[in-house]
């Protein structure tokens, strides 16, 4: 607007201001309008693009990018077997399990804000959550039911994987990881059971850990335990509970296992699990059926150890 100013010179000060104001008004209104227009398609804003580093016209490339360039999505391949999207095959249980795990983390973290893992307060904190904390009851319920649901989901996931034989070469190891994850899931739920410090949890855990008394060699009631000098104060159960009975230490241990240790381990295994899914050739199927007639007979010497995979 340089030459604008030029003109201004000749005009009176007042007029000058007027024009400036005019100009400003015009400027703002026009620019504003067009930029508001721009907002109609947020995908085009710089902000948006700074987050998602690719355009959004629906080209194959972008569809691929939207998966690959997204830290959360990219453990998916850009493309999947067309039938792998069929629910009747996948049941989606693995995904649901993972989703539930995340839900549990959210709700769990929130619950931790009001929970003290101490004999005096644990139970009262639950009352507090139920009666005094807004949405506390809802959160607690969600946390509990999500935990139950997760276990069911895990089992069904395993069930599905077995029925589709998806543990077979080359996925043997990932199946093992899966089994471990299932165990961890159940342990997570079990450790959480004690935390409200009510009769239900207390006795469930008492019954549960009493089995550990009978660990062969390591439990003070297990085979050869006593012979190895196991007592209620040095056996494996003691290690679990931090005491000979379910008490303050047990509560604290359960808390730490439940909130930190197991989730940590589980997430590591999960990472491994997902990574392997990709590396072992993505989701297992549905694969084209094989025919009995196509089985090749074994060649070469039969090692007595299990055969390394790939030999066929």
């Amino acid at each position, binding site marked *: 607007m340089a030459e604008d100013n030029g003109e201004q010179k000749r005009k009176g000060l007042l007029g000058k201001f007027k024009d400036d104001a005019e100009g400003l008004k015009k400027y703002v209104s026009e620019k504003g309008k067009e930029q508001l227009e721009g907002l109609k398609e947020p995908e085009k804003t710089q902000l948006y693009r700074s987050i998602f580093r690719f355009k959004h016209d629906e080209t194959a490339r972008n569809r691929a990018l939207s998966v690959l360039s997204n830290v959360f999505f990219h453990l998916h391949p850009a493309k999947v077997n*067309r039938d792998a999207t069929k629910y009747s095959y996948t049941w989606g249980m693995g995904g649901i399990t993972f989703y539930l795990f995340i839900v549990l983390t959210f709700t769990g973290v929130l619950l931790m804000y009001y929970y003290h893992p101490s004999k005096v307060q644990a139970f*009262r904190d639950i009352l507090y959550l139920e009666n005094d904390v807004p949405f506390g009851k809802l959160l607690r319920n969600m946390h509990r039911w999500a935990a139950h649901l997760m276990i069911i989901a895990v089992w069904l996931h395993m069930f599905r994987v077995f029925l589709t034989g998806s543990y077979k070469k080359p996925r043997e190891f990932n199946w093992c990881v899966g089994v471990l994850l299932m165990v961890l899931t159940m342990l997570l739920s079990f450790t959480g059971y004690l935390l409200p410090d009510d009769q239900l949890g207390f006795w469930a855990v008492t019954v549960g850990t009493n089995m550990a008394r009978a660990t062969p060699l390591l439990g003070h009631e297990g085979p050869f335990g006593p012979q190895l000098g196991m007592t209620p104060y040095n056996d494996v159960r003691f290690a679990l509970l931090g005491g000979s009975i379910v008490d303050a230490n047990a509560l604290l241990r359960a808390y730490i296992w439940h909130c930190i240790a197991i989730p940590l381990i589980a997430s590591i295994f999960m990472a491994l699990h997902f990574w392997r899914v990709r590396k072992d050739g993505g989701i297992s199927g549905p694969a084209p059926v094989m025919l009995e007639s196509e089985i090749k007979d074994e060649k070469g010497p039969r090692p007595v150890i299990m055969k390394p995979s790939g030999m066929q």
Partner: protein
Amino acid sequence: MPEPSGPDPITGKSWSTIMLVSTFLLMLTVAWSLWSEFFGLRPWRAYQRDFASAYQDFLGKQIAAQTKAEAAVYSSPEYKKLKADLDAAQQSAKPKDDEFARRIALADLQRTAITPAFQSARGQVGALIYQVEIIPESNKSARDSAKKDVDGAKAETYEVEYPLGDGKTEIRKMNYDQLNAGFTDLMALKASLVAQQAEVDSSVKIAQIKLNEFVKEKLPGPSAAGLQNLRNAMSTFKIDMHQINVNPPGAMLNYVGGIGLVDRCQSCHIAMDPLVVPVTMTLTKADLGRTMAASHDAPFTSHPDQDLFNWHPLEKFGCSPCHGGNGRALDSAERGHGRYEHWLWPLNYRENFTAGCQNCHASDMVTEHAEVLNRGRSLYRTRGCIGCHKYSGFDDENERLTTTRQQIMQLESTKHDYSIEIPRLNHQADIAPDNDTAHKLNARATSLTIESSKIDAQLQTLESVSSSLMRESKRVGPDLKEVRMKLRKEWIPVWLTQTHTFRPTTKMPQFRLEQDEVQKIAAFIWQQGIAGQKLNPVAPGNAGHGKELVESRGCLSCHSIGEDSKTIGGDFAANLSRIGEKENYEYLVRWVHNPRERTLPYCPFEKKDITPEDYKKHRLPFQFDLDHSRCPNDGHQLEVQQPTIMPSLRLSDEDSRDVATYLMAQKHTNATYPPAPYMDDPKLAAAGRALVQHYGCAGCHEITGLEDEGRIGTELTNEGSKPIERLDFARYTEDAKRGMLINGKTSPRGPWYDSKGFFEAKLNDPAVFDHAKFKPDPMDRLRMPAPNLTDPKTHQIDKNDVDALVTFLLGSVDPQLPTEYMYRPADRRHAIQEGWWIVTKYNCIGCHQIGIDQKTTMQDLPFYQAENKANLPPVLTSEGARVNPEWLKRFLANPSLSTTDTNKNGVRNYLQVRMPTFSLADNEIRKLVLFFEALSSQEEPYIAPKSESLTNTETTFARALFTNPAAPCLKCHATGDPAHDKNATAPNFTLAAERLREPWAERWVTDPAKIIPGTSMPSGLFRREGDRWVFTGAIPSEFRSYAGDHANLMVRYLMGITPDEQRRLQGRSSGGGASPPGK
């Protein structure tokens, strides 16, 4: 390439619809969760809305009424007058008042004026002084220069625009000192001014107070304006949670019951909130037009007992500690009241509300405001529950006795060892090789000797303790050792089978016994009785006179007589209607003469009755009583009394005979008893003994060989907090859980699988949990007998009794509150707490009024109506203030106050009714005396005020007053002269000296009606004149000049009065002599 036949089922299908639907569902759930958070879980919002409107209407009505009332009062002459006075006072005070106001204002102005200057000056000087202080003394020069600076600063002047009142000001130059002085002076000035102003206004204040009091008296409750404010408040009432946050300042985080307690009860029970309904107001459902029937449609009543809040402030106690329930849950009535499976402290039901008191008041026998609970406690005691079920704090003398005895025995064995040890040591000392070993041994021997003498001291104490305990320990039931002397043989089995039909009001529970069990037990009871002690026959007496005695001596304040509707008398002791059918006349005579008399003393150490032979062995006369209570064999304390509550009325032998004769006539003439030959079968007896032990008869009765049997029942001290799993509902567990009653009906309060349900079922029918069980062997059955809770009138189980006991049990929990909440007072209240246990134990309240508005059994008896009221026993509301504790001790120990002539009352021998001899244990006497003193808030120990002796003039004047026709003292007061005392209705003055407390006596003579309304002692003998009491009657001229206090003079005279002085006066007394004037 060929065209695909159809679109790709995967890439070709749009999911937008299902996505839309599912996300929509998502939104629904969120909406739902919001709804439940803000409404679903908040039923109280509705209540509050409802309440606000109803309450406003109510207040509207109130305001109208109140305004009318106020108008009436304001227009009343009294009010006008008071108002006028007030105005006048204000008028007169006004000028001075204003003057002061002006000067105070000025002082304030001046202070504010100089404050800034003063503050900066003070700050500066303070700082410089510090500078001085930090320079070491040694460095004189520097210090001095610094000092100079200080002086400089002090000298420095500030300009202050100093107000001089009515707007004028002047500029003042003020240095530090002036400012300082000015500042403090002004403060002082203001103080004095304010004081003076108050002085000036005092008249106004007084007038104001008068007015206020008048208004308060005429218009109780909140004023119309106050109500209006309330109403306005309600019109803008905010629907919000009301909660009491019981977390006293300075308390730890976890406070009541280990946690900061929050009670939200008021969110629904909104009228309980003092901010909504002021404590000076009460609100009932009726007020709001609600019905009681619909119980929790509108929980809008204010707390029925507002007084309680004076001692139990809400902010300290909240609601749930007393009432139970889950104070914080608000999502439903059920949860808030804690009436769901997993809440351990459910709300007490209406009929058991007072159970909560027991939490903290467990050591009370009588708790104010808790009638139901009190009834429960006393039932627990009188119905003999305590006989089987231990309850800490209740009648544990026996336990203490046993421990004492064990201590004694232990000490004795030690002593015995010493007695062997000492000679041995001495002997060794003699044969000792060298001296210092010998010395050592001797020294040891001597020390042991001293030790054993110490032990003797201990033993003596313990002995006296045990004798005292033995006197205190009573049994609920009679001593069965004397059954052979006392009872008719055939009657026993009948009694065992139909306890409650024979005597509907008996304390004895009905046992469930098979016929053979009855025979065995009866046989054992009969055969364990003391044999061979024959009572020598007594001639029958005069039944008519006996009847009079029974009615007049006061038997009926404990015993009742007559059946069904014709019953009269108290229910504390047995009903005597059919006593004639069972008793043996001679025994009854002895019993009436002195119930505590025992045939044979019992030695708890040898565990046997001591027979005359034992005494003979030691060449001792066979004599045992409270003064001869040592065992001839081992010197230990004997049980020399019957362990019965019943006291001795000190009747003469004739009277006893007459009474007994009368009582023996109390029987059903048509009653027949089948012969019971088996009673003498020793085999049966042997079996019976086991049964008697099994059923715990020895808990209530004294039985040969079973004296030390413990209580067979479970201890109930903490029964209320017993986990439900430990209460065996047997076959009814499921029904209880599902709310089906034993009679098959559905329980009105739903499931009854809780302590309350258990207790109620058990009390209504102790056998209930045996139903439907297969227990052929009676020994396997539940042992608990049916307590007698039947109402003699309706012949139904008295629901109130059951509720009372259940309340008591529900309240018996392990303490859930911090100890500082427990009611264990250290001051006088403790004495009161203790005393009630004894007062109720001996049923003193059957005859005496002790509590302010407590009724006695006696005052309802037909013989004490109308003019006979004068014959009632004395009212003891002010006993502590009235009598000298020393005297009271003596009196309680022996109410006849005489060792020789005991057939009378010590103090009021003009009364027919007799203060009996309870032969209380010292311990009990002590407690009682303290109790009375505490009741009338007297200091302990009592130190009599010193009163100067009378001068001769005073004496003569006193005599004059004493015999003055206007005060015919001796007309009513006894003198000891039988002729005169026939008509006496007041105690003898000769007792006054040692009996009365002077201050009380003075209050008494001046205004007796104030101390005991309706007393026959005339009021108004003295009138107030200035600061002294003056005799109202005509005063002989020579004493007109007497300046002292007449009442005080009179009292001092009385305190010194002696029998012959009295006799002397009697002659002169106008009212004296055998015939009162007016005849």
